[in-house]
Each structure stands twice: as structure tokens, then as C-alpha cells.
């Protein structure tokens, strides 16, 4: 049965209901195409909420990657551009350098940021571009169907390493975030997750910090968000959340990796 949502809302309000939560205006009404249990939707919502809360919608430009978030701009109700695979931070550089008064962020997955876009990522960070990078790390290529990512864990099966990631053959899980923290061009680097309500709240604070930092012009702020890919991992959403806690978070521990030095 089709429910007329608008009419249902009106009826509830007429009966004296109180609005306690509503979706940010910075998300469109397009339903997320992400799998149930995936972290992209939560990450999208947090970023869009922060932009609305800071009142910077008219000054913000987002850059969407290639990967599951390739059509992120269908969900973000803000001005956005779609970048070639791995090039989001170079595109963001072009936007920010010619529009220094704007807020610019790149939203990238692990394949995009840490494999094909490694050079762009490292040099964007090394130049200290005043942008935010949101790095979604789920240890696998989601959109193309579960292939091995640079962040895949040792032993983790994927469609291109069906017997598990073997370091002799495939190399090691790459924690680019920790490497980037060594660069003087990065200002704020943190690793967060959206697997629990508490972590969602912490992640939102980090995202807010990344946007606030752009006003300081002190370099890149990067928030890595460790999430599950239950479809790619071939698990239920609940299994994937458990697997994330038991496996991903030991390889990619949560917390701040580089925090701005305080002046006092």
C-alpha cells in the first residue's frame, strides 16, 4: 500500500504531534541507493548536517569520487562536482585555489584515495591545500563488486583475492592516513567510525572540526571514516558491524592521529 507521506505528516501534526527530528535541507529527497547497513548514508547525513548547521551551504562545493559514492551529488542538496577516479583532491585543489573564500571538500573511498589517487592525495596534503577530505575506508571495492582494496586486511577474501589477501602476493593493508599525518601540509587528521550511536556523534564533531579548520588556512583536514561494506564482505549488516569491530578497528584504530597544536 502506498502511503502519502506528506498527508501522514500533516495528519500527525494536526493531532498535536511535535517535530523532534527532521532531515537536513542539505539532503535531497532521493532515497539512498546504498545497501542497508552501509556507512555512506550516515556519513553523507553528517557532512550535510554540519554544512547546514554552520550556515555555509551557499559557500560550499563538494567533490564526489568514483566508487559507491559516485552519485553522491544525487543525495547532497548542495553544489557539487563529480571527479575522475582518484582525482577528487586535484579537482578540489583547482576549486579551492581559484575560490579561496569557499568551503571545499573531497569525499573519497579507499580505492579512490589510497590506490589510483595516491599521488593526488599525497601532493594535495603536501601542498597544504585548505580543504577537507572525507575518506571512507571499508577495506574493499564496493561499487565494482567486492574486489581487493589497498586497505583490505591480511587474509580478507575478495573477488580478486578469493583465497584472502596474501602479503607475499598482494602486499599489505595501506594506512595512508598515518603516512599523511607525517606531512607538514596536513593540519588535522583523525580516524572515526559510524558503527555505533556514540561513534556517529564523535564522527560528526570531527567533520565539523574539518570544516571549521578551513577558515584557519593551515592545511588539509582529513577525516577517515571506517565503515562496513556488508555486500562486499558477503555478510549481513549485523555480522558486518561485528566483523568491523573485531577486525577492521584493530588494523585501523579509531582516534585523532594529528591534532592542531594549541597556542597556549
Amino acid at each position, binding site marked *: 500500500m502506498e502511503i502519502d507521506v506528506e498527508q501522514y505528516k500533516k495528519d500527525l501534526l494536526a493531532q498535536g504531534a511535535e517535530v523532534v527530528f527532521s532531515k537536513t535541507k542539505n539532503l*535531497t529527497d532521493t532515497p539512498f541507493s546504498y545497501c542497508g547497513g552501509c556507512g555512506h548514508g550516515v556519513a553523507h547525513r553528517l557532512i550535510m548536517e554540519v554544512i547546514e548547521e554552520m550556515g*555555509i*551551504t*551557499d*559557500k*560550499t*562545493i563538494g*567533490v*564526489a569520487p568514483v566508487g559507491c559514492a*559516485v*552519485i553522491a*551529488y544525487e543525495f*547532497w*542538496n*548542495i*553544489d*557539487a*562536482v*563529480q*571527479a*575522475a577516479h582518484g*582525482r577528487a583532491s*586535484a*579537482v*578540489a*585543489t*583547482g*576549486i*579551492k*585555489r*581559484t*575560490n579561496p573564500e*569557499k*568551503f571545499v571538500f573531497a569525499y573519497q573511498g579507499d580505492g579512490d584515495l589510497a590506490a589510483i589517487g595516491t*599521488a*593526488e592525495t*599525497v*601532493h594535495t596534503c603536501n601542498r597544504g591545500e585548505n580543504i577537507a577530505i572525507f575518506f571512507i575506508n571499508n577495506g574493499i571495492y564496493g561499487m565494482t563488486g567486492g574486489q581487493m582494496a589497498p586497505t583490505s586486511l591480511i587474509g580478507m577474501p575478495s573477488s580478486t583475492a578469493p583465497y584472502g589477501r596474501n602479503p607475499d602476493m598482494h602486499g599489505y593493508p595501506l594506512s595512508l592516513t598515518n603516512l599523511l599525518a607525517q606531512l607538514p601540509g596536513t593540519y588535522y587528521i583523525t580516524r572515526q567510525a559510524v558503527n555505533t550511536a556514540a561513534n556517529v556523534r564523535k564522527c560528526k564533531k570531527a567533520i565539523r572540526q574539518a570544516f571549521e579548520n578551513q577558515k584557519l588556512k593551515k592545511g588539509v583536514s582529513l577525516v577517515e571514516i571506517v565503515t562496513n561494506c556488508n555486500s562486499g564482505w558477503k555478510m549481513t549488516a549485523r555480522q558486518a558491524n561485528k566483523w568491523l569491530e573485531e577486525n577492521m578497528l584493530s588494523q585501523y584504530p579509531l582516534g585523532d592521529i594529528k591534532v592542531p597544536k594549541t597556542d597556549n
Partner: protein
Amino acid sequence: MSKEIKLLKGNEAIAEAAIRCGCDAYFGYPITPQSEIIEYLAAEDPYNKRTGMLVLQAESEVAAINMVYGAACTGKKAMTSSSSPGMSLKQEGISYLAGAELPCLIVNVARGGPGLGTIQPSQADYFQTVKGGGHGDYNMIVLAPYTVQEQYDFVKLGFDLAFKYTNPVMILSDGAIGQMMEKVTLSEQLPRETPDHEWTAKGKPTNRERHYITSLYLQSEVMEQKNLQLQAKYSEIRANEVRYEEIQTEDADYLLVAYGISARIARKVVQLARAEGIKVGILRPITLWPFPSARLKELAQQVKGMLTIEMSAGQMIEDVRLAVEGAVPVKHYGRMGGIIATPTEVFINFKKLFIE
């Protein structure tokens, strides 16, 4: 006001023209024989000393073209330059720029290939440039300068055409034009300004829908419509933007077809031929895409044969043959590996092919 005339290298002319036409940003990566473009810009320091134009050395040609893409998304006049091997790296970005319909200027000061090739001049990037070197059905407007003055003038023309059609424009030059020095009449300094184009992504105000810039259309029917819209635009460009120069074609019995540095050789060949009583003329395509096919078809009714002079194994010759549809013989003479043919050797070979 008296004209401002300066002796400039072809590459320097590109750089000076960019500053003077109000370009917002240059992103590039060094490669011979075009590094003078970024070096001249760096020395002029327009960001601090002239117009506020940004000059940024990227970590690669791939990054540079994507920085151009980013700046272009916000309606800025952005450009990059490279030479042949670097241009191969930019092809992905160029395809995205064409697909997303973004204006920008790209300069290729071509050198010999394939592979790492040579740093000497070449015209072997014709196929890559006019046939769409990246993936998908797209075209770029391609301007081919044959003097340092044109090298200078085509920067503003290129940006004007790019914004008129929201399409990438390429200046296809070569190492000879890039490195030679000639007098250039400079233009007035134009203001660096960003007109409020309707399509840009600069931050969404509350009173309009969001803008997003993409070349992704996952539904086949929508993708096909996008392609049809692009093709309609390309048809309009073909109808309106063909540029060429004719030299002594009025009474010509034979036609030389040449662009860039080869067209300068062709001018000398015409003198040699006419001294022997052979009436030779030149059609010099200025736009390589769109190509002056209609005029070549007309000239095929007048001349007995056509010779393309190209510093390649013969690439533009395919477009000349398509244009004349077999009406007259079309032959090619060219040198490769960075060698510029002498007028005498071209003339000797012209006579072998058409007269003897």
C-alpha cells in the same frame, strides 16, 4: 596609443597572452619543449604582481588537468599546457571536461613520438587531438598557430570559443613554433573577471536548485540523449567555427595543405614552384577541428592534385581525402623524428608525385 611590440618565444607568447586575456589559473607540469610557459608565468608572478592569476606546478599532468577541471567547474578561465607524452596523460581529464561540458584551454607544444620519443618538433599528435584522444564520442576545438603572433592571439580566441560552447579548446602547436622568437604585437590587459555563468558550481544559494557537474549518466537512454546533445553542439561548431587561410589559390593547379610549422615550409615551396611556372597554392587549416572540408571539396574541382605536408607519417591526409571524396589524387610528404623538411626536398618530392 602606440602598439606594444615585443620579441617573444612562442612559449612565452602563450604565457603573456594568458595573463593579458584575464586568465584565472594555469596548472602545469614541466616537459620539454614547453616548460618556458610555466617558467615565464612563474617569473612574471601574476598572482602577486599583475592580475592575481594563479600559477601552480602540479605533481603530474594528470593532476594538472584535473585542477583545470575543478577551476572550470566554478566558471574560472583555467588552462594547462604540455607536450606530447604529457598530453597522453591528460586525455582522461580532457574526456571528462568534454563530457561535463566545461570550458578550458589546453596547449600542446608537440614533440616527436611514439613513447618518450624526442624533444624535437612534430605534428604526429594530429590523430590524438582531432579524433578525440580520450574515451567516448567527443570533439575539441583545435587551433593550429603558425607564427608566434598566432600563438599569442589564439590564447584569447581559445578561451572565447571555450566559453561560447562550454567545451575544451586545444592549441596544437609544435616544438618549432614554441621555441622560435618573433615579434609579437601585444594586446591590452583585460580584466580578470568571472562572469556569473548559469551552469557553475560555486555554492548553492537558497533561491536556486543545486548545481552539480558530472559526465555520469547511468541510464542508457539518458546517456544517449546527452550524446545527442553533444553532437548537436559539435554540428553547430562545425557550421560556425571553421577557420583557414588560402595563399595563392586563385589560379592554383596544385594545392598544398599544411598547418603549423609545415605551412611556413609550404609558403617557400610555392615560391620555388611558381619560379618554375608551376601554379601552386596553399590551404592552411587554422582550425584542425572543425576541419575546412567544404572548402577543400570546392578546391578539388579546381586543382589537379593535393599534397599534405605534415611532420608525421601522414595523419591530416585522411581528413583531406575524406573531404575531396576521391575527386583528385591526395599525396603526403613529411619527415618524422623531429626533422623539419626543407622547402627544396618538399618541392623535389612534389614534382616526383605530380609532375614527372
